[in-house]
């Protein structure tokens, strides 16, 4: 790839930038840990999609029954 091509310059920007990071490494480590906690731990174990697990594919009917039932005295 030619060094003056757009794609190489984009690659070089990121590659060189990541290589020369110091504080950035700590911040990236924190970001990755945080993303792992959010998407793997929290999402998988604590935040299931409630409708997917309860509505059996018929969300309108499920939500209707939930919402209408809660209006009853």
């Amino acid at each position: 790839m030619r060094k003056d091509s757009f794609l190489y310059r984009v690659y070089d920007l990121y590659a060189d930038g990541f290589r020369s990071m110091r504080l950035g490494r700590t911040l990236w480590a924190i970001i990755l840990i945080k993303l792992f906690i959010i998407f793997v731990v929290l999402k998988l174990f604590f935040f299931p999609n409630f409708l997917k697990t309860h509505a059996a594919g018929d969300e309108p009917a499920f939500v209707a029954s939930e919402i209408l039932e809660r209006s009853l005295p």
Partner: protein
Amino acid sequence: MLQNLFLNIDAGTIDWSRAQFALTAIYHWLFVPLTLGLAVIMGIVETYYYRTKDEFWKTAAQFWQKLFGVNFAMGVATGIILEFEFGTNWSNYSWFVGDIFGAPLAVEGIVAFFMESTFVAVMFFGWKKVSPGFHLASTWLTGLGATISAWWILVANAWMQYPVGCEFNPDTMRNEMVSFAEVALSPFAVSKFCHTVTSAWIIGAVFCVGVCCWYLMKKRDTKLAIESMKIGAWVGLIGALLAGMTGHKSAQDVAAVQPMKLAAMEALYNGGTDVGLTAVAWVNPFVQPDYANEESAPLKIEMPYALSFMATNDIHGFVPGINDILNGYTTPDGKVEPSIDEKIERGKKAIAALAAYRQAKFNSSDDGTTTAYQLSVLKENMPYFGYGYIKDKNDIVPFIPVNFWSFRIMVGLGCLFILFFAIVLAGLYKFPKVLWKKRSIENLPAWHYWVAIALIPLGYIASESGWLVAEFGRQPWTIQDMLPTWAAVSDLNAGSVALTFFLFLFLFTLMLAVEINILLKQIKKGPDSE
């Protein structure tokens, strides 16, 4: 409030779900305003560099960008947890709002990902790789990307406060967008955006001035401190004045769309014309006042006509109080607002029509007459749909003390910041000269600097108080007049929601401690480190 209801769902589930959402939103909002505020400051600093080519400004720009980067990295993805909570804890709500809520959030996600991540990379990695002009543009575009993200989030929030541009589809049980422009350019969203963003500039500015004061106190990096402080103080003063002006417009929107919120903010039990704005009154912070029997809050000191002006732009304007809204009222121009009892009746009609419609729709013997009739009843009463869930009219009165005191904290601190930034600027430009003859801003007694540093947390308190007013004030609604919290929440076990609440509390506290620690370390290292 909830003890008055005969709920078909565990009250604990509602309360814990609300608490968890509030905790996450408050935590998320610790990072966003500093991002928006510092974006302006670092943009201005780099613009100085671009114009002067003085290496001092480059160092200053890199320093503020470094602090911006720490805050940005710590805030990344904290908002996503709110979306998880929508799907798990607020599933009825999530389904009911349909794509109206999803569309702005999707746009926000795309903008945030592509715009911010692209230009953030150029801003941090591109000093030696791109031209100064392109780098400057990237710095400003990073801030613009964050601000545009805030726009879409606030559009989604504004829709909950003032649902426009939508139509309810009883077949899909969702609100469907009929006008993207109405949703995206709702006057409520515009006011909210302007007020929120300008208030975020205050936080960026107060942070900047506070950090600069710490350097002055330590007698180091004085030039950076003085020059940055000038920029910070100007941004802060302009931001605070604009926040006041946009707050006035926001108050008018609230008066028009959510009069109960305004009445709660003011502890205005009985309204009228020529209404004064309460400067201070005794409203017990822990007890809902007896608004039905009291004429007004005790020990009230008010600014004559100011509430009428704030709400209507007319010093003689009519502002309804809590009792007016509960019992119905007629404005001086003849507009009749029904009582809450009447709205409850109409809401029940809407819900009954929805039930009958759905039953008839799926009953093959219906020739279409019943569905058409029920649909017309539903459409006629849909604006009051949510009132069908209200068992007692007093349930639509939010907790007054939180609204009353949060509003006063926000406005009081806003005024304090105007004064503060004006004094800082006076010190920086030695105005009036007679006062600054024998002293300069870099040689003040230490307590002056400590005051400035102590204002940093107050900036956050002001901003979070604004959100408390916005969100507590619209209780019990998740969507104004359409869906109360107890219809919106998922039928979860309260204990599991409480568990995740405390899990978040631990995680958020830990992450906040880490962020503050890294920020303080970088401030101590100063502009000459990486």
